[in-house]
């Protein structure tokens, strides 16, 4: 009986660890953006209802922003483009360096997104210390809209 319990315990631990590892895979390791600066879509959603809502900046393509975006998010342009990066600099230039800023894109799977890292880098290089990047694993449709999180449409 004891052997059986040990066997089941090993199996259970393995399965539980697999589950936990799988859940942790939600945040990427060795990403150019440090893990401490990444937040999940759910965490961003929670912050929408707080008294001190962060400044939310969309750094993706316009056509996707106009279809659906996080309520209150401002459109900056693609983080990979010079125009997008300049608009980002202009938008934050009067803000204190500890301002809470959240950037997100969701144009394509995280590992392929051309916008997030440059946008984060612009803010980081300007000395902002409270910048969060929303880790959208697949895309905005899958990881935000289809999860029933709130959206706004249009410009």
């Amino acid at each position, binding site marked *: 009986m004891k052997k059986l319990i040990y066997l089941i315990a090993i199996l259970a631990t393995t399965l539980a660890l*697999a589950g936990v590892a799988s*859940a942790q895979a939600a945040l990427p390791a060795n990403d150019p953006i440090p893990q401490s600066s990444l937040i999940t879509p759910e965490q961003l959603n929670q912050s929408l209802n707080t008294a001190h809502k962060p400044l939310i900046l969309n750094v993706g*393509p316009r056509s996707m922003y106009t279809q659906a975006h996080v309520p209150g998010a401002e459109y900056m342009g*693609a983080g990979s483009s010079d125009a997008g990066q300049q608009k980002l600099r202009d938008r934050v230039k009067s803000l204190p360096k500890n301002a809470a800023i959240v950037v997100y894109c969701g144009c394509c*799977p995280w590992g392929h997104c051309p*916008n997030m890292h440059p946008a984060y880098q612009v803010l980081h290089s300007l000395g902002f210390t409270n910048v969060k990047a929303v880790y959208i694993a697949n895309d905005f*449709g*899958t990881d935000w809209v289809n999860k029933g999180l709130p959206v706004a449409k249009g410009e």
Partner: protein
Amino acid sequence: MSSKRILIYGIVALCLLGLYVAGRRTAQKPRPTASGNAAPEFSVTDIDGKKLSLSDYRGKVILLDFWATWCTPCRAEIPHFVEMQQKYGPQGFQVVGISMDDDAKPVKEFYRQFNMNYPVAVGDDKLAQSFGGVLGLPVNFIIDREGRIHAKYLGATDVSVIDKAVSALLANP
């Protein structure tokens, strides 16, 4: 309740939790969605200034590709779609590209660079919404000869899966 029984229940609960979490992650992977609905008609101007209507290709099997020049998985698919157009075109197959770039300039450059052999237009949010929204790229639709959506693929998809679906439709005229 004996301590042994509590231990066993605890272990079983852990097993189920692990399987549940792992299962949820697996379930979020992109997968094809069959529809059967009529594909929405649209009429746009392609990057060469010509009129491009979906109805122009009625009777053909269509691969409608929502993509963008800045989208890495989309870029990887394009050479395969060029190849498919060449291979299956004579059998009644047509690729139609809808770029979600903000303007046509990079699309025109990309079109030349990749020797694209099928019509491409720059889409907008209205066109995207008519296909249920394009809130991530790439998105591919396979449309049958009767104009019905046969399959929808979200995210980077193994091109052999798309090829197989197209060739199966072409085999049933």
